[in-house]
């Protein structure tokens, strides 16, 4: 069931259009990650839903009811702010208790409710502290507790891990999904970190320049990005992109990239003759036998350790740069200066229309591409 729906919502500040007629629907109990570069309008989206600002056009529906007429305090949303926005003159306890105090009095229900959520978030020992006496991590958990404690229908989390250190961010990334599941809230989670979006979101909405470039599951977005820009935003190191030309000759569909020819699935047949951009994720790059079809000769230009993987920057004989992050077996001949022959499985290759940037999907049945 759809809990929250945005229909053609437009928000402007002066002459700048921050959100340009965006539409979105969120299912009950779903966690939707709103991902996009800074300045894309993610926070504005949350502010509109919370009622902190109003759209110039469009409607925001909660369970079918238009929220425009509803004041923020009656919207049944909870929100954790990027800068925490704790009430500096109240203790952590009073901060967390604020949403409960707004509800019909339940006597000591407030204290019980606050304790419960505080224990869950492991801040029960600092409840008497003022916000300025809390560590960043504790502040963040207090803000989260305040957002959660009233069991809101919609939970808005505005990049809650942005201002905490790396270790804490890692822990919370593991802890948050369980926590959110326990509350059964519908969650909008804003983040600038694609890994966070993929780890936490049931679906991801990619917001770019005030519009949704793509809304889909993490798999869909990673494996079938709607545009070149989306493909570039997900993955580290970034996807390898080359200008290419699709050719179809007696049943074989290939892409010509410089001197090399890469085999493509037959479904790309209709793209033949069009200028395209070819994308290969660094982890899809494999070694192939020298001289085999679709092989590219390249030299290892640099080794860049990244977490548990080894990223290699290769330069093809055409002078194009190429990242790989596949394990080639350390101690092999793939050190700096080594010459490799590489390729990619046809089904791992993505094609984008060069002009529009949209992905060209292979048509498995008829061999006709659909944009």
């Amino acid at each position, binding site marked *: 069931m759809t809990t929250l729906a945005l229909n053609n919502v437009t928000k402007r500040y002066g002459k700048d259009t921050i959100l340009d007629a965006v539409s979105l629907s969120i299912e009950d109990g779903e966690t939707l990650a709103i991902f996009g570069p800074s300045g894309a309008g993610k926070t504005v989206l949350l502010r509109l839903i919370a009622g902190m600002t109003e759209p110039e056009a469009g409607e925001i529906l909660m369970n079918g009811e238009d929220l425009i007429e509803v004041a*923020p305090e009656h919207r049944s949303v909870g929100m954790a702010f990027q*800068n925490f926005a704790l*009430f*500096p003159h109240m203790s952590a306890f009073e901060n967390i208790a604020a949403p409960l105090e707004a*509800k019909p009095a339940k006597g000591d229900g407030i204290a019980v409710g606050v304790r419960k959520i505080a224990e869950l978030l492991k801040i029960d020992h600092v409840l008497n502290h003022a916000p300025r006496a809390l560590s960043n991590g504790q502040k963040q958990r207090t803000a989260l507790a305040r957002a959660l404690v*009233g069991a809101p229908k919609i939970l808005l989390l505005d990049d809650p891990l942005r201002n905490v250190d790396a270790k804490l961010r890692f822990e919370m990334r593991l802890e948050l999904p369980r926590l959110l599941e326990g509350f059964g809230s519908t969650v909008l989670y804003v983040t600038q970190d694609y890994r966070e979006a993929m780890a936490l979101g049931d679906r991801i909405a990619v917001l770019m320049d005030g519009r949704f470039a793509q809304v889909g599951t993490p798999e869909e977005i990673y494996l079938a990005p709607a545009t070149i820009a989306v493909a570039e935003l997900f993955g580290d190191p970034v996807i390898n992109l080359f200008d290419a030309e699709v050719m179809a000759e007696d049943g074989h569909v290939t892409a010509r990239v410089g001197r090399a020819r890469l085999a493509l699935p037959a479904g790309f047949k209709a793209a033949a003759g069009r200028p395209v951009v070819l994308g290969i994720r660094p982890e899809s790059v494999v070694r192939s036998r020298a001289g085999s079809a679709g092989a590219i000769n390249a030299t290892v230009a640099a080794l860049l350790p990244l977490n548990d993987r080894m990223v290699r920057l290769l330069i093809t004989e055409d002078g194009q740069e190429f990242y790989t992050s596949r394990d080639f077996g350390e101690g092999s001949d793939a050190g700096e200066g080594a010459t490799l022959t590489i390729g990619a499985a046809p089904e791992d290759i993505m094609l984008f229309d060069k002009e529009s940037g949209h992905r060209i999907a292979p048509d498995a049945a008829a061999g006709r591409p659909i944009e």
Partner: protein
Amino acid sequence: MQHMSTGERVLRGILIALALIFFLFPIFWIVLMSFQTNAQILRIPPSLFFSPTLENYTSLITGQLKTASGVLTLNFMQNLFNSFILSTASVALSLVLAVPAAYAFARYKFRFSEDIAFTLLSFKFAPPLLVLLPLTIYFQKIGLANTYFGLIWVYQLITLPLILWIVRGYFEDISPDIEHAYRIAGHSWAKTFFKISIPLARPGIAAAALLSFIFAWNNFVFALVLASADKQPVTVGALAFVTASGIQYGQIAAAAVISITPTLALALFAQRYLVEGLSLGAVKG
């Protein structure tokens, strides 16, 4: 700054001492005078050593002034009372009016907002007599002449712009997100204003209230023009008192001491806010 020779250090010390003497001596001397009898005051050369008397204060408080020509009744306590009433009520009224306005100017960009704010500020800079002189005629006509109500109303011109501009700065320093967070937590606009915005701006409100109290207390020309003896504050009263008491200098000094004590005490009490208040927040000390 680190390298200061002994000579420079001594010179600095002397200069600071001279400044302290110049600026504190008058207060010190008036306090001394207020504990002296007329005979002691008139003695030449003046002396720092004398047996202090409380006579000046008691005659001010009881309102009975003994002079060579008999007992004069004085109403200095009434002046003191007037000063308290006028200053306190003016500040209280200004707070009620200016704090919400300050919030509006800090939070909302609305049509004419800056114009209104500057109009209110400009009252502070215009020559007071320009308004006061025609006002005496109007006040006579509408029966506000020599009333507390009328005076408190006119005093708003002193206290209100000051409070408005100082408190506005404090409201601007509060992150709007903190207010949003409280509203999202389920509280109305009004409750957010009273539970979040006001408490967070409290230091500024206190500073503005103290400072505007001092300004109201020290005002002279408003009451000089608009009030008769029974409504006059100490600033006007003490001056009238000079002619009334003839040559009772000790009592004049005592009246001056009583009149300046409240503002000096408040200033010491609130000194950390003074700088910001005095410059309307232009310099954050």
